[in-house]
């Protein structure tokens, strides 16, 4: 049972049943205005129309290069910045409307930030930081502190030694455990992990990942796991979404996407990972140059200037995100029948 007073009715907790996506995002757009010296108004198309679902109990990994809109997506999902347009449904209810106001949505969705130090208040002890959420939601002070200590113990930090510590007195791995404990303090259903393990060294990263898997099983959580590390995403995710320049280029089950990628960008990302096998090392980089400027993205497919499969049609036609297999959707003309691309599969094959 929930310790948070006036928490949602437990019978209404899983409103839509297991088949209803926990979070359903469609047409999400966020443009940031920038002012150029000419005085002309321009926008950075940080997130430019993305659609995806997060299923109950799954871990959805989001990967992509720096600047592809991963973190903006995270902030949009948490409501830390306002979306320009698009719809977000939480368990079938529109977020920000009467049935699901931001306040009650946020109680069920929490976030773990990348920078473990910046996300803890340096003037508050570990215990105070964790107890803050329950306290502002009406849990009496002592109960909130007890809960904070129990959570500390659950994430592997002995309360007696760590509860009274300040963030600068503990290590990075320990701080990230504290952040995880804080995110769990409000008993969320969905936890958004924005590069949560990226700043940790490899051995600590593995321990924190295992902890995340344990916690997921214990509390029945759903994760959105944002990372640039494909190995980590492969380890933890059930499904993977690949983003490029503010759009989704591929989404599907993680073994399919990461072992048999359909989008040339995913392929290039995977190839850019250094191989552990010395005979298997490549000198040529599949992905050349930086991503184009999101102020002025390329026409048609946004990846075509860097794509090995690019043809004339790619610069003209924007590829829709279409299913090529059940659950596996790709935004690439070369994979979509009837697109006009020479490598596109025949119509009959797709049917």
């Amino acid at each position, binding site marked *: 049972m929930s310790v948070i007073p006036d928490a949602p009715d437990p019978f209404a907790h899983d409103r839509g049943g297991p088949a209803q996506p926990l979070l359903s995002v469609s047409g999400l757009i966020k443009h940031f205005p920038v002012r150029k010296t000419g005085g002309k108004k321009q926008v950075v198309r940080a997130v430019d129309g993305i659609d995806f679902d997060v299923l109950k109990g799954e871990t959805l990994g989001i990967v992509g290069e720096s600047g592809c809109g991963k973190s903006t997506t995270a902030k949009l999902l948490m409501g830390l910045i306002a979306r320009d347009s698009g719809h977000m449904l939480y368990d079938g209810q529109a977020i920000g409307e009467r049935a699901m106001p931001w306040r009650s949505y946020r109680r069920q969705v929490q976030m773990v930030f990348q920078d473990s130090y910046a*996300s803890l208040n340096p003037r508050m002890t570990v215990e105070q930081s964790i107890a803050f959420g329950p306290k502002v939601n009406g849990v009496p002070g002592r109960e909130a502190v007890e809960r904070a200590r129990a959570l500390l113990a659950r994430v592997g930090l002995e309360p007696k030694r760590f509860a009274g510590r300040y963030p600068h007195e503990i290590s990075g791995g320990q701080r990230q455990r504290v952040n995880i404990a804080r995110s769990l303090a409000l008993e969320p259903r969905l936890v958004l992990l924005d590069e949560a393990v990226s700043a940790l060294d490899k051995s600590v990263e593995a321990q924190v990942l295992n902890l995340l898997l344990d916690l997921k099983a214990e509390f029945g959580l759903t994760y959105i796991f944002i990372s640039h590390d494909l190995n980590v995403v492969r380890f933890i995710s059930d499904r993977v979404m690949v983003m490029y320049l503010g759009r989704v280029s591929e989404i599907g089950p993680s073994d399919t996407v990461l072992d048999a990628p359909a989008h040339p960008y995913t392929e290039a990302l995977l190839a850019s990972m250094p191989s552990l096998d010395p005979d298997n090392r490549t000198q040529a980089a599949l992905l050349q140059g930086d991503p184009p400027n999101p102020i002025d993205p390329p026409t048609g497919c946004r990846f075509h200037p860097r794509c090995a499969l690019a043809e004339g049609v790619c610069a003209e036609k924007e590829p829709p995100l279409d299913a090529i297999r059940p659950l596996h959707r790709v935004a690439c003309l070369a994979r979509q029948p009837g697109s006009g691309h020479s490598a596109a599969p025949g119509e009959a094959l797709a049917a």
Partner: protein
Amino acid sequence: MTAPITAASIALDGGVLAAEDAAPEAAFIPSRGFWGHVGHRLVRDPVAVSAGALILLVVIVAILSPWITPMDPYKGSMLRRLRHVGDATYWLGSDELGRDMISRLMLGARLSLFIGVTPVLIAFVIGSAIGILAGYVGGWTNTILMRTIDVFFAFPSVLLAIALSGALGAGIFNSIVSLTCVFVPQIARVAESVTTGIRRRDYIDAAKLSGASALTIMRVQVLGNVVGPIFVYATSLISVSMILASGLSFLGLGVRPPEPEWGLMLNTLRTAIYVNPVVAALPGVCIFIVSIAFNLFSDGLRSAMEIRQ
């Protein structure tokens, strides 16, 4: 002592059970917290400690002055005017009405400190509130508040204090009000800039995500992080405030005779400067020493708070 602690903290990332075995209860280090560290560093700074001790001494003398003055500070003697420093009866001489200087300086510390410190304290509270609000909320609220504040910066602070005091009329209360008005904008500006510096931090976002109201976030999460720098700035203003307050009294806009106050004493003794320059300068020396002490203490506090975290 160090070995088990290190072992324990390494083991803790691995597993709690192992750490519990390795580290006995003695290995527990009580956490000092930020202010604990600041205090620890402050007492190791000889200049700050001496300045603090001097301020404390002046405060104690000021509080106890009605009972410990060697002579009646109000009782003059026309026959014993302007005695020199080192006189057998009047240790620090006597003023133009033959009143004991040392007694008047001791009692004067009361008023001088009071009208020097009070405006800064009030301005600290009001200015911090305005600055934190403007810095945290940002946007139009910030623009409106800070541009209004900027109007006050158009006037030099001495001129502003004199103008406000002149408009309100002489008196202790009015001079405190006018000095507060001088300091609120300055403190608000500092508060706004430190708050703006932290409002984009992840822990503020995390607090927003927990569903806390803006007021709760400002009180619990922001205040603790900005109060230090604002406080340091405010302590550095005390010396300015004392000098301005003395200046107002000197001009006849603050304390009225026969109440002893250092600025007022400086004014009345001005006429005797060719007869007995040393005695005439004494109140000024007191103002000088106390404001220097406040400045040095504030410097010490600032460097004590520069802890890398």
